[in-house]
């Protein structure tokens, strides 16, 4: 069973948009609205991709990324930051925290899918 994506996003509309795009491409989306619930899902499930919003209520995305990276089941699984942080060093901070890639919001619906899926090994894509 492949094509599971964990989407960590607190904004309902943005979650709907991402889910809509991913499900349209055959991904199975599991959503988590904050860090603790994302960690819980990550520990109990199997995922091929994690999309992580950085500005989250409570535990911020960088801390979530660091915690996700400690989970053995996520070894080698790309974590892509999807964030509207656009200040200098934001990308670097995300990568330092353990993210594999970085996509800036607002996302471009024409290219978003190709961009995030490019981080996933072809054999585990849906």
């Amino acid at each position, binding site marked *: 069973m492949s094509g599971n994506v964990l989407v960590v996003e607190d*904004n309902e*509309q*943005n979650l*709907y*948009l991402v889910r*809509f*795009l991913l499900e*349209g491409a055959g991904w199975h989306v599991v959503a988590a609205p904050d860090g603790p619930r994302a960690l819980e899902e990550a520990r109990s499930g199997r995922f091929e991709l994690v999309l992580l919003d950085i*500005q989250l209520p409570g535990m911020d995305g960088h801390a979530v990324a660091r915690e996700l990276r400690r989970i053995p089941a996520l070894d080698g699984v790309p974590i892509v930051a999807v*964030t*509207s*942080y*656009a*200040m*200098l060093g934001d990308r670097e901070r995300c990568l330092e925290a353990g993210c594999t890639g970085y996509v800036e*919001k*607002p*996302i*471009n*619906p*024409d290219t*978003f899918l190709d961009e995030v899926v490019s981080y996933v090994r072809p054999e585990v894509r849906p």
Partner: protein
Amino acid sequence: MTEPSTPPPEGSAKVAARGTASPGLTETGQLRILTAREIEAARSETARTQEALKESEARFRTLFESSPDGIFITDPETLEILDCNTQACEMNGYSREELVGRSINVLHPEEVRAQTKGGPEGRARFVEQLRQRGVITIESVHVRKDGTAFPMETSMCLLELGGRDVVMGIDRDISERRRAEEELARHREHLEELVASRTAELAVERDRAEAADRLKSAFLATMSHELRTPLNSIIGFTGVLLKGLGGPLTEEQSRQLGMVKSSAQHLLALINDVLDLSKIEAGQLRVSSAPFALTEAVEGCLRALAPAAERKGLSLVAEVDPAIGTVRSDRRRVEQVLLNLVSNAVKFTETGSVTVSAVREGPWVVTRVRDTGIGISAEDLPNLFRPFQQLESGLARRFEGTGLGLSICRRLAEMLQGEITVESAPGAGSTFSFRLPAGEAPADIGTEGR
């Protein structure tokens, strides 16, 4: 003071003058009989000498009494006060009778007295020093009869009086000087305090400014995030719907959604402009440097703006010298500047053309954006590159934009070691020149990437 206690023998002046013989003595010292004339001459000589001595003493006495300084004459062995002037009495609050005959130590406080005692040998050494150095000046303290003390500067010298050495001390009350010195020291200290407190104030102000700066940066980061989050869903869903992913659309629905999309993208451009300018001002914007073909950047920019030019019926022309080759700069930022200049040209031109040319001129690679638009008046030119300055309020309403584009362009050009200049006149169109350092000579002819 120099008069000996016993009168000199008659004719001593003559002895001094001649150094050979007295009137009553032969050169070998034998007595001889003087003539009456000789006796008369010797007497008048003596009288003159005594007269001169009296005059000398009177002059000294006058000086001694009228001196503004206190003067003491003391015996260096016993420290007994032999004489003192009126000023010395007044300074110390004693009468002359109370002082003459007493030890000079009566004027010194206990601790100073201990120092000046030094025993007979110490005093003899002091006299010897005085003889060698002529004058010795010391600062000390005197105690008045009423017990009050005051600082004192004393200059001492040796005098011969009645065949023995005496010390003449000239005393000056230096209370005023001391007060001035203390005052000066206080001022100096106060000044240091002022400097220290001003420094502390400035440090506080600096900290406050830095805190404000951090707050501004945090505010911008937050605003940028907060504004982008809803835009994400507006732009995202509009795109999804326009692609027909939400179901089939009528032509009218597509047109209206297209307007939503274009407005949302404009809003995003504004947010990006504000963010860019604040990054530049916060020194957070970094530029990179790598070789790239300028022709590609120009062509990309024209491609992006071709639809807008077409809608207005403008022709977009590229006149790029093929020998321009590669430039070494930050491609993304160069494209940002070009896009800004060309979209401005399209925005402010109703009929005619927009021409982009690029040539090497000496140390520069110059890209010119020339339009046949409304032009800019001489008084508006200086404000052109200031933030938030669309030229007149009428224009601001006719042409959308933040008024940040040109100010960002100029700052970017400066960061890229280049510059942007403009030539324009109302009705005659405008030409913006964007200069970048040419760097090395064009080795390759710019065919790369065409």
